[in-house]
């Protein structure tokens, strides 16, 4: 119990420190003391010192950092929920086709010359559509038999493949001088365009996914034991499963629609969380959220600052995530045996 509390407190501390540190980092370095004084000034309602630093902090960095926190947390949490629901530690947050669907929606919208807001909406809608189609196929194939989970996983693979083909087709049709690079760049993922207005719809959508999952944390534990046992323990699986899929999908799709295809967070972070606090979702979900935030903040800082040109976040996530996952594998398999 104490170990769990300590891990949660440490993760929270790490997230706060990472967020504050990220505020100081960037092309224009702002010393921590000045960041703090700006925040204090902002909180107390006074206009703050220099207008340039103020606008860098609050109009560019803060929205981006908030987005990195929310997206990291969302992807990690939906990954943890999907892993629990599918009883499979190799499952990740985009397992039912959310990423491929969102990518297709965005690519199509860019091809048709959509405004950035339209691109985001199309990505979100197609992400939901992909998961909806996968769920419908899984449901139709299984028809109440005990193979429901496998049918759903296979349907997810199928739908992902279809939408990936759709992305490729869209790229094929795109103009190689302008829309094709735009599509490619969107797919690689990044947070450079995030502004406060986008947070305004990311936050409520993520909350709609996260709050029910947190409330259902104990039921999620039971779902790890399979449908029959969940039923015998008083859970109506026929609605619990869609509710969890819907919440996790909202989290993934809202994130991916804003930042492009970012992999690995939803696979790696829940493992790390389980290694630290054990299997209970009451611990895994909040710790995954915090660690996901820390991870994506860190990677985004590297993306922003390490190179003269900003590196797409999706590339870095996989570049940093894969060796990290390897380390976890070698370190010990305690997280999922």
């Amino acid at each position, binding site marked *: 119990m104490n170990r769990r509390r300590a891990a949660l407190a440490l993760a929270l501390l790490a997230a706060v420190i990472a967020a504050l540190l990220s505020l100081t980092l960037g092309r224009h370095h702002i010393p921590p003391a000045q960041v703090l004084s700006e925040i204090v000034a902002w909180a107390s309602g006074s206009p703050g010192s220099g207008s340039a630093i103020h606008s860098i902090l609050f109009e560019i960095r803060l929205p981006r950092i908030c987005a990195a926190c929310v997206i990291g947390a969302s992807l990690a949490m939906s990954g943890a929920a999907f892993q629990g629901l599918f009883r499979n530690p190799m499952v990740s947050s985009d397992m039912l086709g959310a990423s491929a669907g969102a990518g297709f929606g965005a690519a199509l919208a860019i091809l048709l010359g959509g405004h950035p807001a339209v691109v985001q909406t199309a990505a979100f809608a197609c992400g939901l559509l992909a998961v909806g189609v996968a769920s419908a196929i899984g449901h139709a194939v299984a028809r109440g038999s005990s193979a429901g989970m496998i049918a759903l996983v296979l349907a997810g693979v199928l739908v992902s493949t279809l939408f990936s083909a759709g992305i490729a087709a869209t790229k094929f049709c795109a103009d190689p001088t302008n829309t094709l690079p735009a599509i490619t760049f969107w797919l690689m993922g990044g947070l450079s365009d995030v502004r406060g207005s986008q947070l305004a719809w990311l936050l409520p959508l993520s909350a709609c996914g996260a709050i029910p999952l947190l409330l259902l944390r104990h039921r999620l534990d039971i779902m790890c*034991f399979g449908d029959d046992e969940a039923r015998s323990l008083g*859970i109506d699986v026929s609605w619990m499963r869609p509710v969890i899929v819907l919440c996790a999908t909202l989290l993934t799709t809202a994130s991916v629609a804003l930042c492009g295809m970012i992999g690995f967070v939803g696979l790696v972070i829940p493992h790390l969380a389980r290694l630290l606090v054990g299997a209970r979702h009451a611990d895994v979900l909040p710790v995954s959220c915090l660690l996901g935030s820390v991870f994506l903040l860190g990677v985004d800082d590297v993306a922003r600052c390490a190179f003269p040109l900003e590196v797409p976040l999706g590339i870095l996530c996989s570049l940093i995530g894969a060796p990290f996952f390897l380390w976890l594998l070698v370190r010990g398999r305690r997280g999922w045996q």
Partner: protein
Amino acid sequence: MKLACSGLSCGYGGRAVLTGIDLAFSSGDALCLLGPNGAGKTTLFRTLLGFIPPVSGAVALDGRDIARLSRRELARAIAYVPQGHTPPFPFQVMDVVLMGRNPHLGISQSPGDVDRGIARDAIDRLGIGTLSERPYTDLSGGERQLVLIARALAQQARLVILDEPASHLDLGNQVRLLARLRELARTGIGILMTTHNPQHAFLWADRVALLAGGAGCQVGPPDEMLSRERLSVAYGVDLMVVEANAHGERVRTCIPLLPAVDPDRKTCPR
């Protein structure tokens, strides 16, 4: 509390595997559902638990059709102990037993101190107190089975259905498990256990439901159901039922017989 069905047909996708099942078991019963592989034991108990709908007929809990009861209501009355399995994540034993409290909790409610106390009692009743902090995934098959039974006790259901609880255990653990289950039946919990091993029925059951291909389900006292004729037909092999006197108590068991070897044949039969 009584779970009963009469004229029940069960199977998958509208195709009946078993028909004309008449079965009832109540609190305090020790009922053994015996049958060879593929006889339909799993289909029958999954129907009794409401996991699959009956093809025709109904299962009634105290006279009420279980299809009309909510999962929560059903779970407070009937607990299910699956075959020992490995979940993918290392839950602690205490957490697994606490899951038994779920049907007594609200949809987003966490288990509280009272639930923790009930879970601890269940763990103590099965004598696995030393395991409560261990990861469930690290336990042996026999220990896991005891944890799952503790979970059923924490569920405070009056009826418990166990699926092949002893099939993966060594002889000592089989006997210890059957002894625990007998004690529980004596405390007023109704226990239905499926098994493909007649020894378990001989040792343990007050009543036996014998499932044998084509003959449907015959229910009766062990002496009547576990006869040489019935068992030979059910399993399709020759066997003998023998009696022994153990510390003044009559015990019965069966000994399977291999087909006689033809002395003229020198090579192994293919």
